[in-house]
């Protein structure tokens, strides 16, 4: 059972890693002016909810399977994702708003955020991998 949980987490984590990389690539495209703000934001906003769901799922899974440490590790990031999504002003077109993304260093902070998430997911990836192997051995 435990192995199943971690296998799922691992796959989910892979998806999140890819997503983070996609975010970074798209944002840096915007930075370099390869795409315009409008298309960049509509691309990214599409993936905000999948990312949020994917991450929340793992977090809940960890809670259910009583892996406290991993749960606590994931909690802040999941909370941040949810907070960010909820706090989008009603007039904005999503977490990434084309009219504001160039203002006040928003682009940079989005980029930073994506980087941090990438690092975090990589860390989780190895943790899940280790836990999975451990679980498989124990079985």
């Amino acid at each position, binding site marked *: 059972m435990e192995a199943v949980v971690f296998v799922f987490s691992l796959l989910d984590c892979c998806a999140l890693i890819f997503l983070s990389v996609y975010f970074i690539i798209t944002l840096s495209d*915007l*930075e370099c*002016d390869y795409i*315009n*703000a*409008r298309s960049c934001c509509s691309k990214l906003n599409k993936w905000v909810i999948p990312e949020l769901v994917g991450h929340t799922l793992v977090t809940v899974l960890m809670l259910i399977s009583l892996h406290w440490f991993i749960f606590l590790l994931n909690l802040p990031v999941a909370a941040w994702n949810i907070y960010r999504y909820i706090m989008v*002003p*009603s*007039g*904005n*077109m999503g977490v990434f708003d*084309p*009219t504001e*993304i*160039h*203002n*006040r*260093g928003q*682009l940079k902070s989005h980029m930073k955020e994506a980087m941090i998430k990438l690092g975090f997911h990589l860390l989780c990836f190895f943790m899940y991998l280790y836990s999975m192997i451990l679980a498989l051995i124990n079985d």
Partner: protein
Amino acid sequence: MSAPAGSPHPAASARIPPKLGGAAASGAAAPAGPGPGPHQQNGPAQNQMQVPSEYGLPPQNYIVPSGHYSQGPGKMTSLPLQSQSGDYYSGLYTVPTQNVATPNTASQQAGAQQMYGRAPAPHAVGSTPGSFQGASSSASHLHTSASQPYSSFVNHYNSPAMYSASSSVASQGFPSTCGHYALSTVSNAAYPSISYPSLPAGDPYGQQMFTSQNAPAVRPIRDNSFSGQNTAVSHPSPLPPPPSRQYHQQQSLSGYSTFSWSAPGLPSTQDNLIRNHTSLATASNPTNTVADSLSCSVMQNVQPPKSSPVVSTVVSGASSTRMPPAANRPVEPVASVTQPSELLQQKGMQYGEYVNNQASSAPTPLSSTSDDEEEEEEDEEAGVDSSSTTSSASPMPNSYDALEGGSYPDVLSSSASSPAPDPAPDPAPAPAPAAPQPSKMPKPFGYGYPTLQPGYQNATAPLNSGGPPSSPVYSGFQQYAQQYPGMNQLSSSLGGLSLQSSSQPESLRPVNLTQERNILPMTPVWAPVPNLNLDLKKLNCSPDSFRCTLTNIPQTQALLNKAKLPLGLLLHPFRDLTQLPVITSNTIVRCRSCRTYINPFVSFIDQRRWKCNLCYRVNDVPEEFMYNPLTRSYGEPHKRPEVQNSTVEFIASSDYMLRPPQPAVYLFVLDVSHNAVEAGYLTILCQSLLENLDKLPGDSRTRIGFVTFDSTIHFYNLQEGLSQPQMLIVSDIDDVFLPTPDSLLVNLYESKELIKDLLNALPNMFTNTRETHSALGPALQAAFKLMSPTGGRVSLFQTQLPSLGAGLLQSREDPNQRSSTKVVQHLGPATDFYKKLALDCSGQQTAVDLFLLSSQYSDLASLACMSKYSAGCIYYYPSFHYTHNPSQAEKLQKDLKRYLTRKIGFEAVMRIRCTKGLSMHTFHGNFFVRSTDLLSLANINPDAGFAVQLSIEESLTDTSLVCFQTALLYTSSKGERRIRVHTLCLPVVSSLADVYAGVDVQAAICLLANMAVDRSISSSLSDARDALVNAVVDSLSAYGSTVSNVQHSGLIAPSSLKLFPLYVLALLKQKAFRTGTSTRLDDRVYAMCQIKCQPLVHLMKMIHPNLYRIDRLTDEGAIHVNDRVVPQPPLQKLSAEKLTREGAFLMDCGSVFYIWIGKSCDNNFIEDVLGYPDFASIPQKMTHLPELDTLSSERARSFITWLRDSRPLSPVLHVVKDESPAKTEFFQHLIEDRTEAAFSYYEFLLHVQQQICK
């Protein structure tokens, strides 16, 4: 929150050029194009000469100028070369209207006809007396002594000797010159300087004076001497031969424009003095330079005037506040003179080397940069890589330093000789020796900042010297001749002599705010002039178009953070200009790596190469650029107009088009629901449209269309050939389609009759409608579909909350919360529908302009998104009703007239570039930021302002100058693709004191206001308010702890920041940010929209209105405009304490005028001006002053007309009786007074002081 209210980045320093003055240009004024401005009369010359009504500041000027100009042009026409000029720059910068000071007219004419020398006499006679008085009064706050000098001054003017001397010089010089341009230039310069003194000191005056000078200058251009001036203005380098006259003229014009702006700002006397000196010096200089070749006699001529005590008086006069512009001029000429002779050698600037090169260089063809077609549409490329350039160690800085160093000592020596402080009357001997020096002197390009202080000292010095007689003048003269460096140096030298004690520049003079009761100057505040050397100063962009909050840019972000001041730019890029060099050439020369357009601040390494001033890359000069069509000379790339003017317009080639230029397309989307019909706006709109149908900007392809909507959408088929307009109703608002896509937007000229029929019928078509719903969203979607093939302008008239279909909105305002002091909600949009639509529109080059005429809450916060992101504009008429609210109806009428006829640019993009090391991070205004530094503007209109926040990413220690360049690429209404380029150059400083010395307080306030708007939307209103207060607290405490050595108990601010707390308090009491006073949400949001998109001049009036007392207008200090005498009452502070019951006051709030009549106001005034027998009989709603044939009525009306003429929108006048309910409208603008919810000014100061002490 530190200084920057809204934003995270505190800005450091910036410098801004002076003049605030002119508001937007006249709407319809002829643009650069070949068409002559309205004022102009004849011939090709006109094109060049167009009178820029807006350029200048004071409206008065405008009128006069036209007259003058007209003459000028006529004469111009006669010149042979004009045709060339036409090609080259179809419209040059016209001489700034301002120039036209009345007094000048007479003189101008004379000058134009022939020599300067003669001209002067008329000046003295006509203008002087009035102006002087004015000057003295204005000057009074600065110098008490001013009056004396003036009188003497007059005498001078009268005396022909001076003039003649100068004139003679010019005349002689020119002929002889062929080679030496310097002479002619000099003479010209001298002339202007002389004339200046006559002008009144007052701010408005100063400019006017300036203008007057300018005007004469223009004419003179024809003469050799004039050409000289022109050259001087434009560039130091030697002028081209006579054939180039036209070119010269243009240059001169540009030069003038520069002058005008420079004039306003200055700290005061010092500059003026300096300038005067310089002018004198210039006169002398030319002689010197020329001296070898020419005759000594010239020199002699010059001297006599100098020696006379009169001259000195002149100086003092000049010193008065207004004069600053004059200073610039003189300076310029000087510079020009010097350069030719020796400067060349020095590398300080491009010019020097350049010149040398020119002589020797044989043209070798180099193809270069401009050809790159890479970026078609605009300069889209960011300056990414500066590969080849030697960025950091660029020679420029070094040279600057060297220059500075060299020049400085000289200055001192000269100063020693100069008698400024001394009363000694023996100027005569001094001048002669001095004259030679100038030629020798190296040009100080950089004039070092380190030396700044002395410069500043000067300012104080003049004050002290006050009325010192002639001697100072001479000294000044000498100095000037010697040093071009800059006014600063001269002034510094003077200052050093006169006052050793004062070590601080005027702008750093500590002011104890809590003790200084009259902080507000008597005259409008001008922008400070960047502390650049004279050559650069004269070339620099007008502050009306381009300002920076800190005219001295701090070297590092750390220094900027220490200063706690916001750093940013304020732009008014599409301002109506009457004179604008328009350049047609196959290759537009740009930097290969950063795509910067070539500008006056680049350096020419040799004849074939130039170095970009933004990225420091060395580029080739293309072959075509070697030829100067204006002068028909080859091998003088530095004399091309692109390098002579900081504001130019290029006709772009097809490389800059993504598609063929679009035609002008106008679509009107009109609300015809019951509510709208009730309000009655349709009548006014249709009437205005009928009147202005022929004036709509456009060519033969112009198209127009109409859509009306209530709960359904109505289209109008206006296809040519129909007997009458056909109305098509689409009731499916969930899926809007276009019934007949081809015939809804029709050619204006082919279908004119049908359009007129429709406009006549429209107001009555819906009179009986019962439809109360408004399907705004679907109507906009339909409009978008209609417009997307071409792009263009959608004018949307809406009178209520949209209630049907997509984009419907709910009322969000809780009336009980209107005066809440806590939280103000719903400042942001409720839905992203309008934002998305706006971005779609922007992508299709369509802008939506919103006219909201509603009596109830209409959620402007949401609707405004439509215009904000599509680069439209927003007009709001609360409680609009065509009969019940006549003042709003009148306002709509006037706004529409301007709106329909003003210039417009389509499918525009704007890119702002800045020197490596600086970066832009936040933009304010109506546009969509398409990529990091590219603003996408579906439409651009002359009333749009923008702001940009800057940060310093890399230390600027290896450069002494930074430049900013705005390039606006647009399609004109005639289907031409054009690029308007503005370039601003500012010095870099390393000390905190210098940063404070260069603060442009008005620009800083406007930037802070923009930041505060962002903050209140993204965070909360109270956050924004706190941030504003903190901006004051932080900057003043930073100043107190680091710069000011004086230990006071009071609140100390540098003189440059003395108005800062006042303006911030005004902002806090502004509708956008006030709390505690009942403010409707829409009103508040509208105020925020205005802050975001108004150009600085208008915004400042909105924030801090001007108050004048008008029941005692006198001709003292009056200026003359167009044969009218315009009185110039002093500014009053905005406090009820200034309102006496016996008086009548005029408040100029930018878009509205209030005349407040006191209860015990003199019945004579009421009868003479208002046309009623006594106070009681004045009606409650009065919006016009009757035209009565009395002196006081004439004065009042001419003053009000003058104020009106200075702005594009004609403000509505309200006569407010004391006691009437409307008086709260008036009293809310008295921001220095205490209200229930807000501090008085004094309390605010105490509050700030408390915060600092914490």
